[in-house]
């Protein structure tokens, strides 16, 4: 049991490393043509650009959060811990959710600087998916696991079907913990946004005092939001515990 877990974990690390190095090699082969940073055909300020992207991100965020909650329920309720698919999938979730959001932010910056040009929406969506799905899935899984098994047993013992048990008991009892996980994920996404805004704007700024203050203000507002979401997450979690 432990041996197979170790095996799947190391396979996961290896594959993630390979994917990352392939990605780096591919992007290094296509450096930016001219030295001045032009964000594609759109010559707009990065802040405006990110605001536009933010409106794109909200529906994507919503969809990915819902998807990962469903995903977590499928893993926890339908795949047993010894199931081979679950054993293969779980290391990726754990590893990816363990990476600090700062790294994702730098990845996003790297992506934007080197090849935002052609398909920025797709690349931002991909980074968002990479960021949201593992964290939300992991926190939802923990929330589901925290539901007392005796409650499940009691519901099964009076003739509840799997769906009835999930909708009548597991979901209501884990709802707050799931929500707390979602808040935590949102704060992670906002951290990434803060990193993007800071770095991209500093790159394109003329470093006059006014622009720097402006940038720092923008980042400050986002970091405040991060703080608020983290506090909400911890408050909700405490109440259920």
């Amino acid at each position, binding site marked *: 049991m432990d041996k197979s877990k170790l095996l799947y974990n190391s396979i996961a690390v290896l594959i993630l490393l390979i994917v990352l190095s392939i990605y780096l090699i591919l992007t290094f082969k296509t450096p930016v043509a001219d030295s001045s940073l032009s964000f594609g055909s759109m010559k707009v300020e990065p802040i405006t650009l990110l605001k536009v992207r933010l409106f794109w991100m909200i529906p994507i965020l919503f969809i990915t959060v819902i998807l990962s909650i469903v995903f977590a329920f499928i893993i926890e309720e339908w795949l047993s811990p010894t199931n081979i698919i679950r054993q293969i999938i779980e290391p990726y979730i754990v590893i990816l959710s363990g990476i600090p959001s700062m790294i994702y932010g730098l990845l996003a910056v790297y992506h934007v600087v080197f090849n935002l040009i052609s398909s920025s929406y797709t690349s931002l969506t991909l980074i968002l998916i990479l960021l949201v799905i593992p964290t939300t899935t992991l926190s939802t899984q923990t929330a589901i696991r925290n539901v007392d098994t*005796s409650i499940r*047993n009691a519901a099964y*013992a009076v*003739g509840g079907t799997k769906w009835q048990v999930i909708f*009548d008991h597991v979901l209501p009892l884990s709802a707050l913990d799931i929500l707390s996980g979602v808040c935590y994920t949102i704060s992670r996404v906002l951290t990434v946004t803060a990193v993007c805004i800071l770095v991209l704007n500093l790159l394109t700024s003329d470093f006059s005092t006014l622009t720097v203050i402006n940038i720092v203000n923008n980042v400050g507002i986002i970091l405040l939001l991060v703080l608020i979401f983290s506090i909400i997450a911890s408050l909700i979690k405490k109440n259920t515990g």
Partner: protein
Amino acid sequence: MAPIIEVQNLNVWFGKSRILKNLSFDIEPKQVTAFIGPSNCGKTTVIRSLNRLNDLQADYRHTGEILFNGKELYSNKNRASEIARKISMVFEKPILFKKSIYENVAYSVRIRGRRQMSLINNIVDECLMKVQLWNDVKDKLHTDPNFLSIGQQQQLCIARALAADPEILIFDEPCAQLDATETPKFESILQSLKQQVTIIFVTNKRRQAARVSDVAGFLYNGELVEIGKTEQIFTTPTDTRTENYVTGRLG
């Protein structure tokens, strides 16, 4: 009368460890059958195999045949949830849903798809009366059940199991949490329920099994050492291990 449950050569494994070894027994309808034995001898596994709650365990597998009303219990035609309803179960600790007293009992009716309020009201009242809880809670049906004592909570659990309209009611060490004053009440409930449903219960209190049951089976290390009329088991056991256990020299 034909037995309601027939078990032939039941073996149960959890992963690689074999919990039950070649169990064969019949359970007669409208009787109280007790399984006694020291802890860790597989009592709970036996009863959880009967209502398919063991299906929830990932590494569970079994061989042998279990017939319920003459039909294979583990066939694909039977849905596990339907079996769990017909062979309902009450656990060691009173497990209540985070709902009102009324809703706790009504839940068993609702999940069967019956939604008429009058019908649900009738069943709830009737079940609470059967478990002798009606007089204690009739004014407080819509309040939280946490104010009830442990014994009353256990009665509520029995009411909830009864509301599922079971043919067999299984109790897993139902008195482990109850004190001396609550146990006689529980036993009288058991006696009154005997007329309507078949009762299987598991206990490690020998005297209680002797008082309440009609048939008793002694389990030891995953084997069914002996099963027979309670009087016979407790007075003239054929196996020395049974004798040692009922006289208190073992376990």
